[in-house]
């Protein structure tokens, strides 16, 4: 899987293909559908009244989160014009946790419970978008800083956000901390039912917007100068995309917590295998890969390891190795 990484992927041209991107997408779709079916039926004992809602909720959350992470990563890489950065490597989800903590810290859980969960969720997503938008606008678009500096600064921001979060968490009452921990360290097994419906709806709308923008995205891939030249409203469109990315990241982090390297993994699997740089192929491919990996991984986790491991740990392992390889390749290339 990682061996493929060595072949160059930049540029829109595709290598000579036996099968076109559409066929490849279809294969991925069948694999994803197979994984989902297997997940729903394996060891079911015919107890459908229990299984359909129980496993169905897991599936819906995995599909929603997988789509959100895949799309946000590819969009982020398109507007920042690189294939190494992802929102979570840049500390987006650490920022989300920080905002959560600040809200609990300043409002208190008693009031927090009284506020409508959905309203709160929407408010958090908005706050997050504003903060992240300002921060990353400053870092990426406004100035011509080197890519490595930006990544490094992003990682340091991540450490800073995490430290600030744990600093604030130390200052909160233990009871309030317990509430916060429930919000922060959820997994696919304990997804909040109420939020799931809302989050899926938000993700769906955002994906629809992105789908309508796919031509603009392809143009943005050419870089700032060329895309302006062919009539893209660069500033406006980049800002829209950045907003979409922050919404997707906050929604998926709110649902299942941070999965740092997952976006990087699925985006690169998509770039390597789909044989096209058009967003109408890469985004669905990455999304299907995330469904395959998440559902398959969860299945292996439950059946082989008896829940005795964590999916995010394994993803960190594989993703970290991939990231080092990408950095090394980048270093060799220039």
């Amino acid at each position, binding site marked *: 899987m990682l061996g493929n990484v060595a072949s160059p992927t930049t540029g829109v041209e595709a290598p000579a293909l036996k099968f076109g991107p559409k066929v490849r997408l279809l294969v991925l779709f069948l694999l994803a559908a197979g994984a989902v079916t297997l997940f729903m039926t394996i060891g079911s004992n015919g107890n459908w009244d229990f299984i359909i809602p129980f496993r169905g909720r897991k599936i819906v959350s995995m599909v929603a989160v997988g789509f959100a992470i895949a799309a946000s990563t590819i969009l982020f890489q398109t507007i920042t014009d690189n294939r190494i950065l992802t929102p979570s490597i840049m500390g987006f989800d650490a920022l989300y946790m920080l905002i959560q903590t600040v809200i609990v810290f300043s409002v208190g859980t008693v009031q927090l419970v009284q506020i409508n969960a959905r309203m709160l969720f929407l408010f958090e997503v908005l706050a997050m978008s504003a903060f992240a938008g300002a921060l990353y606008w400053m870092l990426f678009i406004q100035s011509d800083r080197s890519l490595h500096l930006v990544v490094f600064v992003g990682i340091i921001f991540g450490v800073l956000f995490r430290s600030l979060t744990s600093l604030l968490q130390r200052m909160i009452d233990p009871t309030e901390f317990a509430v916060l921990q429930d919000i922060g360290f959820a997994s696919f097994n304990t997804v909040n039912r109420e939020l799931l419906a809302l989050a899926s709806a938000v993700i769906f709308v955002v994906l629809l917007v992105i789908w309508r923008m796919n031509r603009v995205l392809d143009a943005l891939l050419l870089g700032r100068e060329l895309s302006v030249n062919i009539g893209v409203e660069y500033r406006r469109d980049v800002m829209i995309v950045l907003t979409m990315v922050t919404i997707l990241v906050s929604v998926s982090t709110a649902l299942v917590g941070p999965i740092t390297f997952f976006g990087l993994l699925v985006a690169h699997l998509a770039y390597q295998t789909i044989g096209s740089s058009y967003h109408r192929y890469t985004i669905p491919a990455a999304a299907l890969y995330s469904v395959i990996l998440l559902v398959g991984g969860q299945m292996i986790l439950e059946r082989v390891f008896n829940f005795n491991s964590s999916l995010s740990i394994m993803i960190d392992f594989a993703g*970290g190795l991939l990231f080092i390889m990408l950095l090394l390749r980048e270093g060799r290339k220039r």
Partner: protein
Amino acid sequence: MAIANTLQAADMNQVRMNRRLIYSVVGVFVLAVISVFLGVYSFSIRDLVRGDADVHASMVLLVSRIPRTVAIVLIGASTSITGMMMQMLARNRFVSPTTAGTVESASLGILIITLFAPGAPIGIKIIVASLTALLGTGIFLAILRSIPLRSPLVVPLIGIMLGGVVSSVTSFFAYRYDLLQSLSTWTNGDFSRVLRGRYEMLWLSGALALVAYFAADRFTVAGMGEAFTTNLGLNYRRVMVLGLTIVSIVTAVNVVTVGAIPFLGLIVPNVVSAMLGDNVRRTAPWIAVTGAGFLLMCDIAGRAIRYPYEIPIGTVVGVVGGIIFLFLLLRSSSRVG
């Protein structure tokens, strides 16, 4: 005549610098005194001086307060010095035990010894952790050696990611054997565990930092590369191995006794070199003193913010150090970009 004047000026400069260094040492001492007297159990200084403090007071002082302050000074100084050494050996400003996989590898070592020999004495733990730290740092340097690098910032990025991969292996096994909670005590530094009888290994860190100071010139030369070092008549391999061994042992000792502290080995040498330049023989005492003073201040802050509770030092340094480091990075971005 002109040369004599310059020499005299240099001498004057040296005298002034030495005087400033003495002031800084006094400053660190004052901080240390504050640190000793900060806490729920309060002492009357007059009683202590007269020697008629009750048994309880002197016990708190000797068993908890003084060991803690000594531990902070030793760790602050030794971590900063090892950071400086790594920056020389890798010839990169952004390398430090926390950005080269050293700390994470040491944690893996502690996990291994905890799994296979939970009752092992602390000395054995430190030896195993030092060995894994050495291995991890060696892998990091081998990766660096094998590729031509365009930007100095790629080096710490690779180190951080290597650390991430190593620590995901650690968490995998910690998760399987229910050791995640113990793991968090090594990964987030906390001085509240320091008591008499549990910190004495830190003197080893202090001693090794002193060795590093006396051998500083060699490490500077080794940083220039193998051919250059050999040309000057030094055994390159031996110097590198000595340097890495010191770094690994100091890191292992510090992680075993209090846990990892982010940014410390990174910002202190950088701040000092921004003010005083890169002559490490001259700056090493400054780095040690600044490291100790910075860590004392962070510790006092961590204990005062939420008095009488305390915030772990790793968290405080993560916030303060992160802000300082971002400031350094973005201010000098034109230089390092």
